[in-house]
C-alpha cells in the first residue's frame, strides 16, 4: 500500500527555503544574487555621475548630490559587491570540491549572508530617507567627523560597512575551518583545486586585515556620537591613523577581490585550453606571494601624506615586488594557452578578457608605485583608471566568467552561449571605452571626485560616459539571459562543458600532468 506519510510527498520550494537555510549551495546562490544586485545599484549611481560629467558645469545635479553618488557608488561596488562576491561562489563550489555536503558552520554561513544583506539595506534605506554618506567610500577624517558631516548618513555608512566586513570576517573563519579540516585525508594541500587554494588565501587575508577596518569604523562612530577624540583633528598623527587603519585592510581587500578570480581563470583555462595547465605549483606560488606581499603595501595609498620617506620606499619596493608574483601567475596562464586547442566558450572568453584587462591594470599600477610619479598622479583619473581596470577587469569579469561556468553546477541550467558572447563583447568594448580614456584625463591633471572640470577635457569625458552606458546595456543583456534561462532553460548535468577528469572546482594538480588523476571523493 503506498505510504501516506506526508514526508514522502515532495514539498514545493518556498522563498524561505532559500533565505533561511543551512544548505550552502542555496546560501551561495542567494549571496551571488544579492551581491550582483548591489553591483547594479553601484552601476546605477555611476550612470548618474557620468550623466553629470558628460559636460562641464552643472548638468543634472549639484556638487553635494555628486558627492553622495560617488560615495555610494564606491561603497556598493567595493564593499558590497567586490569583496563578498567570491565568498558566494565559495559557498557553492568549495564543499563540492572537497567532497563534503556542507561548509563547516552552516548557520554561520547564513549569518554572513544576512549581515551583508542588512548592511546594504542600511545604506539603501538611508539613501531613500535622504541620509547619505558624502565623504567617499574611503571616508577620510577629519571630513567624516561630526562637525563637518552632520546627519545620519555617515553613521549609517559606518554601520553598513561594519556589518559587511564583520560578515566577511566570519565567512573567512568558516572557509578556513572547512578547507583545513573537512577535506578528505587523500586531498593534501598540494592536491587541492586552485580555486580552493585561492579561497583559503583570501580567507587568511581577511582574517588578518579585517580587524583593522572594524576598529577604524568603531573609533569613527565613537568620535561622531560619544565625544571621544580618537581622530583628533589637531593631531596629524591621529588623523593619519584613519588612513593607516583603513588601508591596512583595504589594500589586502583588493587582493580579496583578485585572488579568487585567479582561481577561476585557472579552472576555466584548465577546462577549455585543450591542454593541461602549465604549472599548478607556479600559480599557487604566485598566489601565496601576492598574499604575503599584500600586507606590506598599504602605505602606497599615502605617498602624498607626511609619512616617513623610509615607509614610502618600503611600500614602493613591495609594490614592485608584488607585481612579480602576479606576473608569475599571468605568464603561467599564457603558457597554459600556448599551443592549446582553445574552445572559445563564454567562460573562456571572459577568462581571456581577465588576463588582458588585469595586465593593463597591473601595468598602470606600477607607474603609481613609483613615488615621484605618484605625487603627480595621485587622486587623478589615472588612479581611477587603474583601480577600474583591476577591479572591473578581474572581479567583475571574474564574477561573470564564474557565473557562466558554474551556472549548470548550481542551478542545472546553462546560460545561452550566443547571448553570452554578445554580453562579453559589449562588456569589453564598454569597459575600454569607459576606462582607457581616464589615463589621458589623469595625465592632463583632472582630479577624481570632481563635479566640474576644465572644458578642454570634455571630449574624453563624453567617451567615458558612452562607455558606461554600453556597460549598462551589456549588463541588461546578461540579466535577460539569466531570466530566459531560468524561465525556459533545459535541465543539464554537471558535464555540460564536456567530459572531465577533474572536480567541479577545476584545476587540480592533475591538470598539470598528462595523466588523469582520480576525482576528489564525492565531487
Amino acid at each position, binding site marked *: 500500500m503506498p505510504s501516506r506519510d506526508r514526508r514522502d510527498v515532495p514539498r514545493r520550494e518556498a522563498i524561505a527555503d532559500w533565505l533561511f*537555510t543551512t544548505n550552502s549551495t542555496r546560501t551561495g546562490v542567494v549571496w551571488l544574487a544579492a551581491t550582483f544586485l548591489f553591483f547594479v545599484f553601484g552601476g546605477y549611481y555611476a550612470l548618474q555621475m557620468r550623466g553629470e560629467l558628460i559636460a562641464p558645469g552643472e548638468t543634472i545635479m549639484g556638487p553635494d548630490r555628486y558627492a553622495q553618488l560617488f560615495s555610494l557608488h564606491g561603497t556598493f561596488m567595493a564593499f558590497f559587491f567586490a569583496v563578498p562576491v567570491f565568498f558566494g561562489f565559495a559557498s557553492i563550489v568549495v564543499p563540492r570540491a572537497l567532497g563534503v555536503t556542507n561548509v563547516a558552520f552552516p*548557520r554561520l554561513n547564513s549569518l554572513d549572508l544576512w549581515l551583508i544583506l542588512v548592511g546594504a539595506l542600511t545604506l539603501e534605506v538611508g539613501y531613500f530617507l535622504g541620509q547619505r554618506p558624502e565623504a567617499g567610500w574611503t571616508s577620510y577624517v577629519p571630513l567624516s567627523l561630526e562637525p563637518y558631516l552632520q546627519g545620519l548618513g555617515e553613521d549609517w555608512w559606518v554601520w553598513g560597512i561594519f556589518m559587511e566586513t564583520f560578515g566577511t570576517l566570519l565567512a573567512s573563519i568558516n572557509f578556513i575551518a572547512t578547507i583545513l579540516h573537512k577535506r578528505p585525508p587523500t586531498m593534501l594541500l598540494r592536491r587541492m583545486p586552485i580555486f580552493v587554494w585561492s579561497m583559503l588565501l583570501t580567507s587568511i587575508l581577511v582574517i*588578518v586585515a579585517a580587524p583593522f577596518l572594524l576598529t577604524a569604523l568603531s573609533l569613527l562612530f565613537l568620535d561622531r556620537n560619544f565625544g571621544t577624540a580618537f581622530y583628533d583633528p589637531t593631531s596629524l598623527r591621529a588623523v593619519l591613523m584613519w588612513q593607516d587603519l583603513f588601508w591596512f585592510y583595504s589594500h589586502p581587500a583588493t587582493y580579496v577581490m583578485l585572488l579568487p578570480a585567479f582561481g577561476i581563470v585557472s579552472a576555466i583555462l584548465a577546462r577549455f585550453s585543450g591542454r593541461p595547465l602549465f604549472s599548478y605549483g607556479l600559480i599557487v606560488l604566485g598566489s601565496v606571494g601576492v598574499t604575503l606581499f599584500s600586507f606590506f603595501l598599504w602605505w602606497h595609498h599615502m605617498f602624498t601624506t607626511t609619512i616617513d620617506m623610509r615607509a614610502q620606499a618600503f611600500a614602493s619596493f613591495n609594490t614592485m615586488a608584488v607585481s612579480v608574483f602576479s606576473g608569475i601567475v599571468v605568464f603561467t596562464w599564457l603558457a597554459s594557452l600556448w599551443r592549446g586547442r582553445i574552445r572559445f566558450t563564454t567562460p573562456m572568453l571572459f577568462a581571456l578578457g581577465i588576463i588582458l584587462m588585469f595586465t593593463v591594470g597591473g601595468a598602470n599600477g606600477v607607474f603609481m608605485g613609483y613615488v615621484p610619479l605618484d605625487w603627480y598622479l595621485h587622486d587623478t583619473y589615472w588612479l581611477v583608471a587603474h583601480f577600474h581596470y583591476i577591479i572591473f577587469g578581474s572581479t567583475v569579469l571574474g564574477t561573470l566568467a564564474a557565473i557562466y561556468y558554474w551556472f549548470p553546477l548550481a542551478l542545472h541550467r546553462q546560460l545561452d552561449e550566443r547571448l553570452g558572447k554578445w554580453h562579453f563583447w559589449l562588456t569589453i568594448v564598454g569597459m575600454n571605452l569607459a576606462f582607457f580614456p581616464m589615463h589621458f584625463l589623469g595625465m592632463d591633471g583632472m582630479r577624481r571626485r570632481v563635479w566640474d572640470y576644465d572644458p578642454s577635457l570634455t571630449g574624453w569625458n563624453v567617451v567615458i560616459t558612452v562607455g558606461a552606458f554600453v556597460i549598462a546595456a551589456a549588463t541588461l543583456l546578461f540579466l535577460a539571459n539569466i531570466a530566459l534561462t531560468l524561465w525556459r532553460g533545459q535541465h543539464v548535468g554537471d558535464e555540460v562543458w564536456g567530459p572531465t577528469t577533474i572536480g567541479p572546482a577545476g584545476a587540480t594538480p592533475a591538470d598539470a600532468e598528462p595523466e588523469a588523476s582520480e576525482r576528489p571523493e564525492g565531487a
Partner: protein
Amino acid sequence: MASIHIQAEEVEKDARTFAPAVVAVGLVLFSVVVTVWPRWSWLPILVVLAGLALWARESIARRVVVRRIEEVHAGHELAPWEVPTVWWFGGAGFAFAQLVFYLVALRVLHAHGLLEAGAAWPEGLGILRGLHGISMTVLMLASAAAAAWAVRDARSDGRGARVRIAMGIALALGLAFLALSALQFVRLAGAGVVPAGDGRLSAVYWALGLHAFFATAGVAALAFVFARHLAGHVPPQRAGPVAVVAAWWITLSVGWILVYLTVYLHALVFPFEIV
C-alpha cells in the same frame, strides 16, 4: 531508526534556520536605534540575544541528532579521533582574529603618542596601578590555565567530573576578573578620568574596553558550555566546544598581557615613528 535517517537527511543537507536572520536584523536595528533613539538601544540588543539563543537551540538539536546518526553508522561508540572537530579550526580562527584586535589597539595607543619612551600618560590612571592591576592579571592567567586544564581533561574523559571542575574554576575566576574590570571603570569615572575630548584617554579606554568586551563574550561562552556539561547534555569524548572556549580564553590572556604591559605598566615601547 527510519525517523533518525529522515531527520539525518534534513539535518545534514538542508534545514531551515531563522537564527542568523534574527541576529542580523537585531544588529541593523541597533545601528539605526543607537543613532536616532540611543536610550532604546537595549531593545535591539535583546533581539540579537534572542537570535543567539535560537541559534544555540537549533545547533544543540542538530548535534544531538547528527551524533546519533554517526553512532548508528559507525556501529560503536566513537573515539575522540573519530569525531569531527571543525570546532578546533573555527576556535583557532576566532582566537586569531581576537589577537589581531589587540595589535590594532596598540596601534591606536601609538597614534596618541603613548608608546614612545617617556610618553606623557594621562593624569588619574594611577588607579590602574598597584594591587588592582596585579589582581586582574592573576585572575586572568589562572582562568586561562584552568581552561587549558579543562581541554586536556575533555580530550581524555569528556564526561568526567574533572572537566566540570576545571570549567567551573575558569568561570569563577573569569567572573571575578569581569567584576574587577567593571570596578576599575567605575573608579576611573568616579575620579573624572573619562575620554570625552581627550585622544589619549580615548585610546586607553579603547584598549581596556576592547579587552573587557571580549572577556564578557568569553565568560558567556564558558558559562554556556559549563551549563551544558552540568546538565549532562554533552556527548562523551566531545572536546570541541570546550576547545573553542579555551582557545578564546587563552587568547584573552595574551591580550591581557599586552594591555597590562602598556596601559598599566607603560612598559611596552615602540622605538620608531612612521606616521
